[in-house]
């Protein structure tokens, strides 16, 4: 590997730390940003929680599958908010017209990505931890009771969210703010296919084949198996993990190619529309 290439992938904790510090300063300066992190997950929880109550009262099947909707909404939020946490931190640089300052600093792209992943975790923790406690208080659902399976679900979902976030960041670098809506909507393409609230078997068979190419599908199937059949499907988690490694690597590759293309077309100079 050439010296230039080695230099480009070197990781310096002080630079990653500087970027995390920048986003922490921003969060600390804005209570609306903090509130926003909790607001939507809490709204989602209450809607789906009460719906689950209602259905359980009228269906023996759902009464036995206690918590499946609440678990699904919490897991979906890990996936969606994880990507949003990554993408919004990146968008902050474009909104503040600070991207050129970063791109001419010694900050490596891979360090930037690491900082965005850390921020995705921090934002997720701020938003989701209180909501998990609300789920316990209002609906008697203890997500932590899922034990080690929860860790496997979380790792797989967050890896998918980062893979999508990295690609979105690359598209934003290449195409500017005109592509901003991707950050808010791209994950919703996965929602029906990942079978968040229903089993894969309800999809037409040709769509099932597509659904099984998505790592979150394995997580949501695994979650239902655990809650409804009390079976831990390690096989599903491992398959999801292998797919995630592939998607994550593809995401990083796409990001680096889009960055290269942005340097070629000069879009790092203008980060507007």
């Amino acid at each position, binding site marked *: 590997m050439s010296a230039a290439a080695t230099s480009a992938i070197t990781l310096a904790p002080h*630079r990653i730390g500087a970027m995390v510090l920048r986003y922490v300063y921003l969060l600390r300066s804005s209570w609306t940003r903090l509130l926003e992190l909790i607001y939507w997950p809490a709204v989602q929880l209450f809607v789906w929680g009460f719906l689950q109550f209602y259905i359980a009262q009228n269906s023996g099947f759902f009464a036995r599958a206690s918590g499946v909707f609440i678990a699904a909404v919490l897991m979906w939020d890990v996936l969606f908010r994880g990507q949003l946490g990554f993408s919004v931190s990146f968008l902050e640089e474009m909104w503040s017209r600070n991207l050129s300052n970063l791109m*001419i600093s010694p*900050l490596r792209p891979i360090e930037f990505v690491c900082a965005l992943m850390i921020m995705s975790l921090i934002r997720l923790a701020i938003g989701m931890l209180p909501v998990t406690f609300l789920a316990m208080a209002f609906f008697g659902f203890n997500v932590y009771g899922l034990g080690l399976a929860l860790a496997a679900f979380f790792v797989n979902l967050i890896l998918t969210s980062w893979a999508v976030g990295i690609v979105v960041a690359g598209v934003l670098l290449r195409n500017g703010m005109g592509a901003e809506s991707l950050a808010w909507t791209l994950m919703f393409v996965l929602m029906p296919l990942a079978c968040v609230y229903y089993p894969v078997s309800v999809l037409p068979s040709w769509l099932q084949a597509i659904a099984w190419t998505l790592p979150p599908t394995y997580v949501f199937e695994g979650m239902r198996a655990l809650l409804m059949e009390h079976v831990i499907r390690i096989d599903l988690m491992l398959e999801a993990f292998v797919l995630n490694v592939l998607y994550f690597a593809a995401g990083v590759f796409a990001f680096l190619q889009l960055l290269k293309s942005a340097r070629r077309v000069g879009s790092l100079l203008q980060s507007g529309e």
Partner: protein
Amino acid sequence: MAKIVEPVIAVDQLVKVYKTTRAVDGISFGLEGGSITGLLGGNGAGKTTTIAMIMGLVMPTSGTVRVLGADMPRQRYHVLHKMNFESPYVDMPHRLTVRQNLKVFGRLYAVEDLDARIATLAESLDLTEFLDRPTGKLSAGQKTRVALAKALINSPQVLLLDEPTASLDPDTADWVRSHLEQFRKERGATVLLASHNMAEVERLCERVIIMKRGRIEDDDTPQRLLVRYGRQTLEEVFLDVARGRGEAREAAQ
């Protein structure tokens, strides 16, 4: 045998084509260490694209840029910590205070004894009383001084400035120029300054490169340009070049 010293910035046959537009069209120049050079040209002359290629922000279509011996943008990470940039068209995060912004950039550039460096810069740029104010709440002049503090945080060997005094009142602009002059003398930095402001270039620069439609139209000291064009000010020289009168004058001679 005398050692050949490579210019701090060496630009050779540099071309940048955006789709069908040749933004930079085969320019070459070298900047010696410790020099301050003005890059003059009208809108669309190719100044900003040239500076962006020197920083590694834009990839040349052909030709080469070397900064402190590093091939840009391929080896940019070898030298980016020794460079910096300031432009009124690039902002700093508005919600962060001045101190927070300088801390973040100081850490990115691995500045040692950062708190002391921020205090020194704040004092010399008259920013001490604003350090704990959100950057977005400052006036245009104060923001420019903050951007300058960011550009100087790592005491760069190579400083690139894109219209550093645009939209500033004459007093603040003069103040910024004085500070840049002082920094260059103390640090021995190489400075490349893109500007529309002829008085600024005349005052600060020991060499002027005039660009037009992506090409270098002239390259000389301000004094020699005035003599060659038979003009009193650089502004008149610039207008001669912009309106093609320089070529006519040379043809007549």
